[in-house]
């Protein structure tokens, strides 16, 4: 009985379909219709343009801090496109493009980032959780949803998003372990964008990949080129199908890059080099997919303009919304207002009547508040 190697040995696969020039591994090409391909590209363009618009809105003080997605369009859209409306989508805080695809109106998201809770209310028919800010805490929620799906005998799949940094949190571990034990229909999508604010992946974990972390839970793990929307789609499709078939969870690591700031309160020049950013810009998921579509002659004329017009219309709707009544702040803490809150509400009402607090706080002028971090206006 010597020293033996336990079977099975473990391995982690890497999937990539489209290279930086839009060339293809045809054997792996996902079966997407022309309409689907166009919709996918449109969503990516919308994600990119809205991102840029939101940065400007933030600089003007019309919304608060938010986390841009630039560079991660393929990771989040390739994956979310595999979901049905009856499936569940559980975002972290950097899935704006995926959330829009899931039906969140742009103006609602803007309202959310402008500091109004109303913006966080999913529509009655939407199977989506709202933005979760504490890193990794949404992962167990996704597992619980998936348990409930299974318990009720429903046909849905749950897809949950998080970053590379999130994998260090205890909640990541506990959620994956529960999912493994319970074998519930959940797909864990890690957008490994190489950075958790200023902390690079190699200071985040000593493991070579995020995908291999799945081995700890006896769960399949797959690494995918996260800037290759077809590869992400194929990987997600496989995981979603597996989950729907009752074969349990999957961890997908999308290797991608955050091309912009961590949030609008961040200054990445403090912690990473221009060269690194430029190298990743050459792998831009939009460029690559555009080249592919061009070869297929699927590019639409005037797409950017139409997208911009849609965004402008949404921004206009956002700005037309009157600020909600401050008194509603008590409305949804409990199902029924308990006496002490009724009293506090009455007190606020008296104050508002006396004009002590603005009944309808006007959108603030550019941040008089403490900036987080340098908040120098950097190029990106």
């Amino acid at each position: 009985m010597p020293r033996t190697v336990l079977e099975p040995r473990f391995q982690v696969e890497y999937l990539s379909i489209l290279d930086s020039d839009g060339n293809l591994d045809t054997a792996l090409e996902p079966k997407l219709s022309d309409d689907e391909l166009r919709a996918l590209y449109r969503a990516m363009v919308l994600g990119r343009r809205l991102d840029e618009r939101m940065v400007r809105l933030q600089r003007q003080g019309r919304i608060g801090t938010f986390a841009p997605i630039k560079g991660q369009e393929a990771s989040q859209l390739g994956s979310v496109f595999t979901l049905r409306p009856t499936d569940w989508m559980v975002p972290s805080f950097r899935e704006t493009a995926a959330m829009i695809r899931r039906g969140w109106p742009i103006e609602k998201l803007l309202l959310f980032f402008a500091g109004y809770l109303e913006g966080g209310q999913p529509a009655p028919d939407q199977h989506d959780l709202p933005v979760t800010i504490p890193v990794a805490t949404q992962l167990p929620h996704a597992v619980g949803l998936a348990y409930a799906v299974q318990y009720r005998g429903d046909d849905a799949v749950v897809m949950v998003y998080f970053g590379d940094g999130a994998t260090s949190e205890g909640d990541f571990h506990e959620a994956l372990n529960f999912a493994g034990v319970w074998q519930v229909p959940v797909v864990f999508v890690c957008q490994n964008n190489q950075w958790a604010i200023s902390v690079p992946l190699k200071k985040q974990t000593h493991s070579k990949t995020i995908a291999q972390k799945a081995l700890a839970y006896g769960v399949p793990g797959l690494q995918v080129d996260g800037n290759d929307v077809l590869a992400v789609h194929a990987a997600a499709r496989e995981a979603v199908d597996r989950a729907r078939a009752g074969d349990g969870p999957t961890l997908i690591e999308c290797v991608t890059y955050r091309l912009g700031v961590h949030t609008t309160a961040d200054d990445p020049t403090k912690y990473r080099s221009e060269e690194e950013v430029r190298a990743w810009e050459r792998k831009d998921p939009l460029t690559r997919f555009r080249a592919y579509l061009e070869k297929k002659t699927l590019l639409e004329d005037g797409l950017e303009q139409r997208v911009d017009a849609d965004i402008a219309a949404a921004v206009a709707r956002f700005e037309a919304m009157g600020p909600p009544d401050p008194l509603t702040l008590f409305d949804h803490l409990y199902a029924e207002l308990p006496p002490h809150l009724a009293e506090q509400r009455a007190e606020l009402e008296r104050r508002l009547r006396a004009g002590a607090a603005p009944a309808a706080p006007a959108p603030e002028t550019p941040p008089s508040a403490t900036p987080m971090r340098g908040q120098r206006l950097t190029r990106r």
Partner: protein
Amino acid sequence: MARLNMVKALNLALAQEMERDRDVLILGEDVGVDGGVFRVTDDLQRTFGSQRVIDSPLAEAAIIGTAVGMALYGLKPVCEIQFSGFAFQCFHQVENHAARYRLRTQGRFHCQMVIRMPYGGGVRALEHHTESEEQFYAHIPGLKMVIPSGPRNARALLASAIRDPDPVVFFEAKALYHAAKEEVPDEPETFPIGKARVVSEGRDLTLVAYGAMARVALEAAEQVRAEDGAEAEVIDLLTISPLDRETIVRSVAKTGRAVVVHEAARSFGPGAEIAASIMEGAFLSLEAPVRRVTANDVAFVGFAREKAHVPDAARVVAAVRETLAF
């Protein structure tokens, strides 16, 4: 009608609520095959199956975190945390999520869930097995916090907690699990969350207590009645948060004096809120400062020294006498 101890009474509430509503399920460490370390969930897995009574892996944050997910889907999980001393592991899931989901989604989702845990001394156990942590939950907006004081109200309050649309943290005094039996009606019974109960009327002083200390307060009230001829009105809070200030203030407006008893550490503890609320609501009636009889501000003392630490009737009597003599 059967005479049950608190363990059996809680078990009855769980069984009946599960019978009543297929969305109610149980989740926790050792709750299934073992029936829970205090046997509160005994036999439930046999009756309702392992999909509804789930032996979870050893991870409190995931117990609460997955229960939040289940609740968002419409299930009504009842989680057991093995001892309240191990619930800090899931405190972020409670504070960040269970308590906030209704607010965050402006009513679109909410967490109808119960988080049960044994708390308090009286079991000759080691560190983290005898503390009294209700204050941490009482301060969290969006939660309700319930602590029954005997078999019958434990059963009724647990049923109410399970039916309550808001998340309820439900503390069970270990010292009461087997302390006494009470007649518990066979038919499901509930008790409104948010209501305190005047368990003994009196006009000289108000004693406010809950959980295992409700009994201690009653004992003290009997002693001062017998030995001093003074009448203490005893209020058993049952719900800690939202606090039933109305019942407390009404009583103190009548008696003019109050003593608060709890097992939690004193400083920044629940007694402070009760005292402050009395002052706010009944200032002009107050004849003496509200006194607090509590555990010392020490994290734990070892069970061999518990008697010098946790309030007993003698300490309450002494505080009552001082307050009456003020």
